[in-house]
């Protein structure tokens, strides 16, 4: 593995290519629910953009890739438009912003157009030998092909979509659910960047994406108390 590192914020820094990647921002989560009639709090502004800017402070990134589910739902709401514009503007000043579309981004292209944001949405991106995508690919054979293709040059498939989390316990009465990375030969699953994501406990239900199903990760890196805790995973 080249000199990349997992970032606690969370994300992954691919040093050789000066690229940062994060997944599952789900911008406008509260607004999306409001549009459906649920009174989630919108008073507090999302701080996703601020957190991303802090990451750009730390790493000399030339590129920032958003691995899908950039928005929770592309509702036609001015607040979301301004959030997206702000993101595009402030990040755009510091690095090239690349968007990969996820299952929640179906109408994002239209919203970007309405908001006057000139950003393309791709299905995937290659960064060195690594294939970056969201992970909502339905077709197993396509996924299998991707995994094989990246293995040869020592690359990985890097994806989001799963919102992985793991519960740590002291064995008696205390337990805490932490977001985690899932890593294995040729695969890396990023936890969700969004503060709204509760996290899906691994092992509880089968993976959503064919990639980790086909190539089960053997290690979970839990983000707990400002550190990364590696946890060996038994076979699923």
């Amino acid at each position, binding site marked *: 593995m080249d000199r990349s590192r997992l970032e606690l914020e969370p994300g992954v820094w691919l040093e050789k290519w000066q690229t940062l990647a994060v997944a599952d921002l789900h911008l406008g989560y509260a607004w999306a*629910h*409001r*549009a459906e*009639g*649920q*009174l*989630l*709090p*919108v*008073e*507090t502004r999302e701080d996703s953009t601020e957190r991303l800017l802090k990451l750009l402070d730390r790493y000399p990134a030339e590129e920032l890739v958003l691995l899908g589910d950039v928005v929770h739902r592309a509702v036609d*709401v*001015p*607040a979301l438009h301004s959030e997206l514009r702000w993101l595009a503007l402030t990040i755009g000043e510091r690095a090239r912003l690349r968007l990969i579309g996820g299952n929640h981004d179906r109408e994002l292209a239209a919203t970007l157009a309405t908001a006057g944001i000139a950003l393309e949405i791709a299905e995937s991106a290659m960064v060195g030998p690594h294939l970056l995508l969201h992970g909502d690919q339905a077709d197993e054979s396509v996924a299998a092909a991707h995994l094989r293709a990246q293995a040869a040059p020592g690359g990985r498939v890097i994806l989001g979509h799963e*919102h992985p989390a793991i*519960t740590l*316990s*002291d*064995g*008696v*009465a*205390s*337990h805490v659910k932490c977001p985690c990375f899932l890593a294995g030969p040729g695969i890396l699953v990023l936890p*969700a960047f969004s*503060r*709204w*994501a*509760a*996290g*899906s406990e691994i092992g*509880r*239900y*089968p993976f*959503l994406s064919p990639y980790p199903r086909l190539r089960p990760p053997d290690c979970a890196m839990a983000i707990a108390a400002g550190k990364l805790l590696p946890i060996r995973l038994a076979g699923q």
Partner: protein
Amino acid sequence: MTAESSVHPSVFAWFAARYGEPTPAQKAAWPRIARGENVLLASPTGTGKTFAAFLGVLDELVRLHTRGPLRDTIYCVYVSPLRALSYDLEKNLRAPLREWFGEKSPIRVELRTGDTTAGQRARQYTKPPHILLTTPESLCVLLSQEKWLAPLASVRWLIVDEIHALAENKRGAHLALSLERLELHCGRLQRIGLSATIAPLEVVARFLTGTHGQCAVLDVASAKKIKLSVHTPLRKDPYPEAGYTGRRLIRELGGLIRKNRTTLVFCNVRSGAEATTYWLRENFPDLAGEIECHHASLERDVRREVEDRLKRGELRAVVCSTSLELGIDIGSVDLVVMMSTPKGVSKALQRAGRAGHNIHSISRGILMATNVSDLVESCATVLLARERQLDDVRLPDCPLDVLAQHLVSMGCTARWSRADALALVRRAYPFRDLDEALFNDVLDYLAGGGASLRQRYREVFGKIDLDADGFRTREGAVRREFLQNIGTIPSVGQVTVRTRSRLLGSVEESFIRQLQIGDVFMIAGHPVRLEKMTQMEAWVSRADGALPTVPRWNANKMPLSNRVAQEINDFRRELRSALAESRDGLAAWIAGRLDCGAANARIILQTHLAQHDISEIPTADFLLVEELDDEAQNALHYFFHSLIGRASNDALARVVTHRLGETRGGNAIATPHDYGFVLTVARRQRFLAAELPKLLRLENFDEALDGALRRSEMLKYHFRNAAQTGLMVYRNYFDRQKSVRKLQWSTEVIFNVLQEHEPDHVLLREARRDALRTFIDADGARAFLARQATQPVRLRRVAQVPPLSFAMYATKIKEALLVEDPYETMERLYHQWWSEIENGAASPQHPTSNTQHPTSNIQHPTSNGLRNARERGLRKSPSKKEN
């Protein structure tokens, strides 16, 4: 005005011919109702309450009809907490109407619940019934629609049945608001409340009539004779071997069932009902086909079948949880048996009241005590019941989520000024003290946010349009969706259990998650094998003959009532002083004091003497704290003997733990129990006696409790309910479809966001209020600390688990074990500890050396854990010998 003269002669003649002499409840109620008074009638089930309420109504409708045809509008609304009650009532009302008028009665009775089909609803609107039988939720649905205002304007009588089951929870608060809105709309409403035994009746009367109404309180409770007694399968040995008591219990229960035609058996929890049904059938195969199970997690059809069979006299026994406490018609039952104490005097009387064939027969109720603490508690309960010393009911105080829901409902039919809406809400008893600022905060929340937010964003997508003067609910989708989400009953993580042809019921998701395909568990007392799991459903097949695991349901455990706690404290104090004088004649004294018989008195004495010898008998005059060294686990256990009920001890334990955490750090774990709580710390954190008063000081109690609750599961649980009832999230949104994607989101996250950014959000405030009053009792804990402030605290080191601490300690260990049969576990532990006491204090054993390590089966319970426990713990019948 006599009972007879208050009703039309032909109606009275019909009644006399059909039913004979009116019951005391009817005699008391008819004249008052005929005079137009609001009435609260308190009387046990089977005393003719239905006709006490309805005969006058029917009578008046008949009179109106003779003067000219009745209009197509509603004259009387009946509300009950259970659909089943309304079904029964419909039949009972149609009968006299049919006898008077034949098939085409000019007086129409109809049912309106969540089950009413769209076609039926449409017909009810075009031709409204004269008498509408409904539920609190459905009533609110009608009140939320403009088109229903006309038929509702003519309502004259409003009858609330089983009002005791509504007054003390949010459903009742919800109904209270509906009643005020209905009365405002009708101009004048005569309110009739039907209640079982509960106290204080004055408060329930206020709840019924609101802050502005008068109410005649008719207490006819003594009309029915209830005879309670205590049985125990314990004979000579207070804590016999594991399985012994269980086996004996089932045998004795079977004996009682054989001696009576029909027996109703109450268990406190659903899993208990399941297990008891199963073991009864296993041990009495000739009766197996006539023993059934009944609880709220069984499918309604399954329950109806049991109820019908019971009514037809086809069943010898029904084992239920609390589901048959309310007055569903189940025919006549000879005997009621309560497995272990019902935790309160009112409950004991309500349950026993289900027995008896008619108003004149004596209702017999037996409390089956399963261990010595249970025995003392049961005796205390029976003594109090004889004197009708009931526990006090407590009503919720301004539940904000219910308020939010009703404000949206009100706004559907009219524009309201803030002042008018507030005045109306305050007429409802649970909201009498509603703070105006809080009221406005709720309105802001419903409008999508405060005024400045609404200015900043045009589309806050709130539920109401709000300005300085008043509000109105937004039209279109908001109203449509609102109508689908009315109610206060939270949706829980349940999985439906079904066979190919039939729905059987539901079990908790957390239980089914531990199982693998092929595992056997029980439902409705029958073993079933898990064949297939989808996200929402568990498909099973019958597995008769296989050994099942008892499912778990996370129902609220009822805490001990204050009255009974006090009675037990009194007993202990008296025993202590008697003991100080002499050991002679104590057994006889106990037998007289508790009215429990000589054999029971002896084992109670044995237990308390052992307690006296190893430690001392705790009373309410001081606080006994026992310290037990657990070398095996490198821990110390402190048993705090605050006999104030689990709910109060839960609050107390949280405060103590919180304070410990702040002063000493480290991890202390507290386990609350009715009789006190257990505090476990690392050995190096041993206390000195002098430190205890600081942990127990009254000042800053509220802050400490708030701090303790802030990140607790309990608070999140209450927030989840508040978020649903308060319309922040749709009732089923986060659970609906259960696709894994939906599972990635949860109300917990909303909770975290609010805690951090908007700690004063109205729904968080409601969650806190709810948390402090529902399962934990902050007031009770505070009262205890106030009393304790002037009393000594005594810290004692003990070498074994003292008998009066058995129950607390077993609970602590038991709760960590997800899989073993809790009943067997407790028996095993008790027997073990008692043996250690009997074998003498000379060589202190480590009490936990043989005990199941609490961590062995928890957190990530695998099905291996399940299987191991099964192999180890469960045998075909309760075990003969352990180890």
